[in-house]
């Protein structure tokens, strides 16, 4: 207590601040320790002991249940045979959870009821080191610096800075092969790079997944078809994914007189059939929610909305540009084909997309 009182009104103001106003109420000091029921009544203490050990025992029982469940409950084909739910997962989770929690609650009950609950007082020390220590450290540093002779030999100092400085170069250079540059990848003939896709003159528009070609007459007003360029399914793995991520389109049919063709795009649609990139011009999600009466298509990721009757102009949301349009025509067999590749890069914007 005396230790406490000494520090009660200890002045923690530094000398730079105005003298503190006297505290309105003096520190009454640490209140006297009060005994807990378990401290004074051995019966209650015994009861607490039994509670704690009961929890520990139940925990062990739960662990046994866990191990049993591991072997008893089926997973795989029969994962939902018990009660139509993942019995294995539930049994394992609940038994493990209880086994752990009972240990935790038991230990805390033990700490609260039976461990000594005398509060202790420890004095704090300033985080800073003492002035003597600081001085000694500075002295040591200076001595070390002096003895290293770096001061008198600037040639060593400077060349060392140079040598370690240029060591950063390997760190950067070594990362160079993380990937090719966009320029190295670009290849219009193979549809590679940011500005090219698999679409080319006379490439048929085929349905996604099944790959069948489309005649304009197959479509009814209001239809939306997810499509890809013919031949894309010859690719597989990464190449297929990369190709799809750029070449995916949506083909929609609306009343021909509802279409307001963009400048120079008068012959890009056919009989009310019009085709746009499916990849959002915002950050690249595939757009998919089509409202046939308004011809609006909405991206489910960030709700950019495009008007397909009006060159896929942005009517709402964070996208900055319309969806690129794919110029359509029909081939000799009457199937929809592209007139050319997209006339602008598809997908998210990037610094040099207009270059």
């Amino acid at each position, binding site marked *: 207590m005396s230790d406490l009182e000494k520090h009660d009104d200890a002045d923690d103001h530094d000398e730079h601040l105005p003298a503190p106003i006297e505290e309105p109420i003096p520190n009454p000091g640490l209140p006297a320790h009060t005994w807990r029921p378990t401290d004074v009544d051995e019966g209650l203490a015994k009861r607490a002991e039994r509670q704690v050990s009961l929890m520990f025992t139940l925990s062990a029982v739960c662990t046994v249940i866990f191990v049993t469940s591991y072997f008893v409950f089926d997973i795989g084909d029969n994962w939902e045979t018990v009660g139509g739910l993942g019995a294995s997962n539930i049994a394992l989770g609940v038994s493990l959870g209880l086994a752990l929690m009972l240990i935790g609650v038991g230990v805390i009950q033990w700490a609260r009821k039976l461990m000594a609950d005398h509060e202790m007082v420890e004095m704090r020390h300033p985080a800073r080191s003492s002035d003597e220590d600081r001085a000694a450290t500075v002295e040591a540093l200076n001595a070390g610096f002096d003895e290293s002779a770096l001061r008198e030999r600037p040639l060593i100092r400077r060349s060392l800075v140079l040598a370690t400085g240029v060591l950063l170069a390997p760190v950067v250079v070594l990362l160079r092969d993380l990937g090719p540059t966009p320029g190295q990848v670009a290849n219009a003939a193979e549809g590679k790079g940011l500005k090219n896709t698999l679409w080319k003159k006379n490439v048929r528009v085929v349905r996604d997944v099944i790959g069948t070609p489309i005649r304009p007459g197959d479509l009814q007003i209001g239809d939306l078809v997810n499509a890809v360029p013919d031949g894309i399914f010859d690719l597989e793995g990464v190449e297929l994914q990369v190709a799809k991520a750029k070449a995916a389109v949506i083909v929609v049919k609306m009343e021909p007189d509802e279409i307001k063709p963009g400048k120079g795009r008068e012959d890009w649609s056919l009989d009310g059939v019009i085709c746009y990139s499916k990849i959002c011009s915002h950050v690249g999600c595939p757009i998919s929610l089509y409202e046939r009466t308004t011809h609006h298509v909405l991206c489910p990721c960030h709700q950019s909305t495009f008007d397909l009757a009006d060159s896929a102009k942005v009517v709402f949301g964070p996208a900055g540009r319309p969806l690129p349009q794919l110029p359509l025509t029909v081939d000799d067999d009457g199937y929809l084909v592209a007139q050319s590749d997209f006339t602008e890069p598809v997908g998210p914007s990037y610094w040099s997309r207009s*270059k």
Partner: protein
Amino acid sequence: MSIDTSKVADSNSTSAATPAKPSKVGAVATWADDRLGLGTAMKKNLRKVFPDHWSFMLGEIALWSFVVLLLSGVFLTLWYVPSMGEVEYQGSYDPLRGVQMSEAYASTLKLSFDVRGGLLMRQMHHWAAMLFVASMMVHLLRVWFTGAFRKPREINWVIGSVLLLMGTLEGFTGYSLPDDLLSGTGIRAADGFLKATPVVGSYMSFFLFGGEFPGDAIIPRLYTIHVLLIPGLLLGLIAAHMLLLVYHKHTQWPGPGRTNDNVVGYPMLPVYAAKAGGFFFIVFGVAAFMGGLLSINPVWKFGPYDPTKVTAGSQPDWYMGWPDGLLRIMPGWESEIFGYTISWNVMVPILITPLVMWGLLTMLPFIDGWITKDKRDHHLLYRPRDAPTRTAVMVALMTFYGLAWAAGGNDIIAVKLHLSINQITYFMRVMVFLGPVIAFMITKRWCISLQRHDRDKLLHGYETGIIMRSPEGGYSERHLPISETEAYRLTARDRDEVFVATPQVDENGVAAPGGKLDGVRAKLSTLMFADNIQKPTRAELEEAHHHAEHEHALTAALDGHAADGHQFDGHHAVEGETLRGSH
């Protein structure tokens, strides 16, 4: 019987040395200490004192859920295959059998359906990640609201803030690993974010993905980042965070005997070790319980990633929600300068604002320190009301966060509440700016009202709820003095000092540089402190008590009388009690 002299010390001591019965533990301890000298290091720390309060447990939740993450994560790596190589799924989950997918997705399905306990570990891991990030955030709020960020703990605040950033990135890389449709959509968007970076955007994207999106490199790379790079950083930072906590000693609430110079509480051994250790088991158990009962990220329902597919309601994990919300409500601004495209619509909400907000959060203690110029060490906490401006600043930031987060669910809100998504978006565009201002003003006034209430309690006592009628017919409420302990607790806080810009010399006797900056500081200091209600001085308190005594004298006739009101509260016997009694 002869005396065994082998145990007698060969000194001239008066009593024979009797060594303790050699125990195995003792032998091991001796062996270790001979080599490590642990005794000296542990001597002080084994009984190190930690103060007790429920709010000190929040950071502990983060610590323990990190341990759960490490344990469950190691289990997952035993089956998970970080590869985008394509395979045909032939596992137990019937709806996807025969479907082409990446090995990453197939192995995640295997973990979920064909490894016993695999789904439990996956779900525990994901739930523990939620707990980890959430508890870090709540812990951060606690530290700010109670003033535990002040000198000497600013560096620990910075470490904590880096931990929060790292934890968020760790979460993003983690939930991207299953390579399902939802997480792939997240990576697709991340590719868009990278590409929006001026000048180098498309290069960053090509370097990260090893070529064109999606490529086959991103999953293995995210895996390395997720299981090696970031966990390593997290471990190091957590260790530093804990070491500083031990070095500074924990903050405590002021109270009788609890001052800025001491720390009062239970010793680490045994009480605190038991409580903290027990709490580890509880956090672990809760994570197991959640993993067993609450489904999370059911990747089998989403299917493998396909860049042409998406699902409505695509959303990142909740802690990534607020930048996503900003992205949704940002107008579609994009400009071309000299033929180069600048995507403000992506850059502002994703690349700039989160970094600025994080930077601001990290710098808060330093901004605060610059305004207050408080160089003292602070080890006592305050209640949020006693720092109205600080509290209001954080509530404003929370409001911004909450609104941006809600905007990230604008589609869900529109569907569930039958609202127009367009109107929600327009509303949010205004409210992310207006909301924080309103929240600031309300919070600040609210805090000051509470301070006023505290001051009233100190000066005039607490409201008893007993209404008195004077002979003249006027009504008044009876106040009784609060206990000494509570009165002390209410006054155990600093007086706020408003910084006044003076063109002369400052307290150090040095000419103040940058008079203009001082003016700004003075204005901010006024904004921060001028309206606060200060605790009464001793003179004010005495004056008030004197006044109260006078009042009591007037009503003294009522003491012990039926009209003192105590018979109504049911707690007291009326006999022998006076109104100025020992409350």
